């Protein structure tokens, strides 16, 4: 069961990562990247690494996305 779930998570992660690269919209890419990070942090729990999971969720998914979106506002305000 866990194995199945892990496989599913991996597929979600890879599919979303490809989506990030291919989508032409920047904002969409940033939001989808947050999903990649969140799924990665769930994967860390699967690999028995709760410390890393918490750090990845708060820093990788939270703060990185926040900085990306704030920057996006600055670079897109003129067009």
């Amino acid at each position, binding site marked *: 069961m*866990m*194995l199945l779930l*892990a*496989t599913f998570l*991996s*597929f979600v*992660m*890879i599919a979303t*990562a*490809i989506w*990030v*690269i291919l989508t032409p919209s*920047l904002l969409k*890419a*940033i939001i989808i*990247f947050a999903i*990649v*990070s969140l799924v*990665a942090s769930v*994967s*860390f729990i*699967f*690999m*028995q*690494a*709760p*410390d*890393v999971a918490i*750090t*990845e969720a708060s*820093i*990788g998914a939270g*703060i*990185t996305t926040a*900085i*990306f979106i704030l*920057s*996006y506002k*600055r*670079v897109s305000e003129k067009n």
Partner: protein
Amino acid sequence: MTMSNIFLISSTSLIFIGLFGVLTRKNIVKILLSLNIIETGINLLLVAFGYKEGGKVPILTSSDSINHLGNMVDPVPQALVLTSIVIGLGTTAFALGLTIRYYKTHGTLNIEANDEEEVTAHE
């Protein structure tokens, strides 16, 4: 297919996807997103290197857990990944600051824009 193999393969694929993005994209924000994907992939890869089938969390919770130290997953890669996540955040933050400045000085987010000053003089 075991759990660690799944994570080894998926993290390696993430690294490859990110590398493809870094190599082919022209938009700086896209390149930074690809770099972040590479970093996520590496973090997963390192933790997967330390994973062990049926391993336990390397935290002592009771007197019993001390007798099963050999069953725990390797804590060192986790410690390294903690460091590398923070370094990744630093890279991203600094690069985004530079990107905003780049947008102001170059008027575009294309990485191949000319860096010489003369170009702006005509605009």
